């Protein structure tokens, strides 16, 4: 082999491996995460939570102080405490959380009230075709169509992996929409408004794809 072929081969091999990595690097890191001690989870790319906040600081809401207003096209608008919501319904689910920026957390255990239960409780009117979730973190918000919100696994969660939902994960209350990328799952939800048409959410106004369904690219 001539001398130049060695360096050229190394270069092309590296680039080729990297291109394969576009598709498979996360399989590698998620396998690594399973064998590495949990203390280093935060350093393992692509398979653990990352905290995204859009305001200068995260909202700080004590669970007892939480008030969630539900209004718009509903027969029985109202303001709910966490205890009120827990009265409406409490459902547990295990689902994967996919972020559009390339990480996935598998098997997250959530407890919360399903939107199906909540919309039934407040009496969503026939004209209510969209559910708008407004965060205490201004100006974050996002909307689901009513049909999307009525999928059985869409919930307002107050518990994650057996503990009260932590502040950085949107505690005391966040939306969980497992079939869509994480930017739909609004954190620090304090206002839910039923409307006739869905509004573009925060990241959608910043260029994100309005079709947020988790695709085949995640092996889901």
């Amino acid at each position, binding site marked *: 082999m001539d001398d130049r072929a*060695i360096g050229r081969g190394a270069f092309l091999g590296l*680039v080729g491996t*990297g291109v394969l990595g576009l598709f498979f690097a996360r399989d590698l890191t998620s396998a690594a995460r399973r064998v590495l001690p949990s203390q280093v989870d935060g350093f393992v790319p692509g398979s653990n939570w990352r905290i995204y906040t859009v305001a200068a600081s995260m909202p700080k809401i004590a669970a007892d102080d939480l008030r969630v207003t539900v209004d718009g096209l509903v027969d029985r608008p109202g303001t709910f405490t966490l205890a009120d919501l827990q009265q409406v319904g409490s459902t547990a689910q295990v689902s994967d959380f996919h972020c559009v920026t390339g990480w996935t957390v598998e098997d997250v255990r959530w407890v919360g009230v399903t939107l199906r239960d909540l919309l039934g409780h407040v009496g969503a009117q026939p004209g209510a075709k969209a559910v708008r979730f407004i965060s205490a973190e201004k100006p974050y918000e996002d909307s689901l169509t009513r049909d999307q919100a009525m999928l059985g696994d869409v919930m307002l969660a107050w518990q994650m992996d057996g503990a009260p939902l932590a502040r950085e994960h949107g505690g005391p209350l966040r939306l969980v929409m497992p079939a869509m990328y994480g930017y739909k799952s609004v954190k620090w939800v304090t206002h839910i408004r039923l409307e006739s048409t869905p509004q573009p959410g925060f990241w959608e106004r910043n260029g994100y794809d309005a079709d*947020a369904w988790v695709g085949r690219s995640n092996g889901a």
Partner: protein
Amino acid sequence: MEPERILRFTRTERALHWVHAVSFFAMLATGIVMFFSTLAEAIGRRPLVKDVHLLTAVVWVVALAGVIGFGNRAALRRTWAEVESIDADDRAWLAFRRPVAQGRFNAGQKINTIVTVAFALLFALSGLFLWLGERNHAFRFDGTGALHDLLTFASVVLVVGHLYLALIHPSTRHAMRGMTSGQVDLEWAQRHHPKWVAQVERAADPLPTSGSDQPG
């Protein structure tokens, strides 16, 4: 008296190096903020941090393209040919059969350059798909984010080694001059890169010293 010097890097090569170096650290700073949750929580404002990261990336790519487009491409081609060529002496050096005479670059420098260029391409490619993938999920591939992060980890290790050799290690830190002024001391080059000096001297003085190998 000023020591005799020898040109190691043209302005084009130096410009390419410094554009890449400054951009790397600028993108590393915003990248670290987005990666580590504690920093992300403390600083917040993800849209702003992300915009700065993306803007730096655009400046980086445009500046590199500008240096290559308007610079001394012949010098770049010559350097890359030397970098890619891992000769018998380089292989001996890599196998720790030292000392062995080195050309303008030793095998470690060649490998560092090959890896850096490959990583630059992969950073740009994975970054482009991270950006596109948010806008259209058809471009969102499962490994893109993990690849971008793994490249960062590997690059930080390389850069730490590179900084040590360029700034601290006694026998190599003189090479820093080559990347600032372009020139290194001839005496240092003769000790560390004798094959290179011999080659430059042959090129500057094409007359053979003995008549034996003269064409008939």
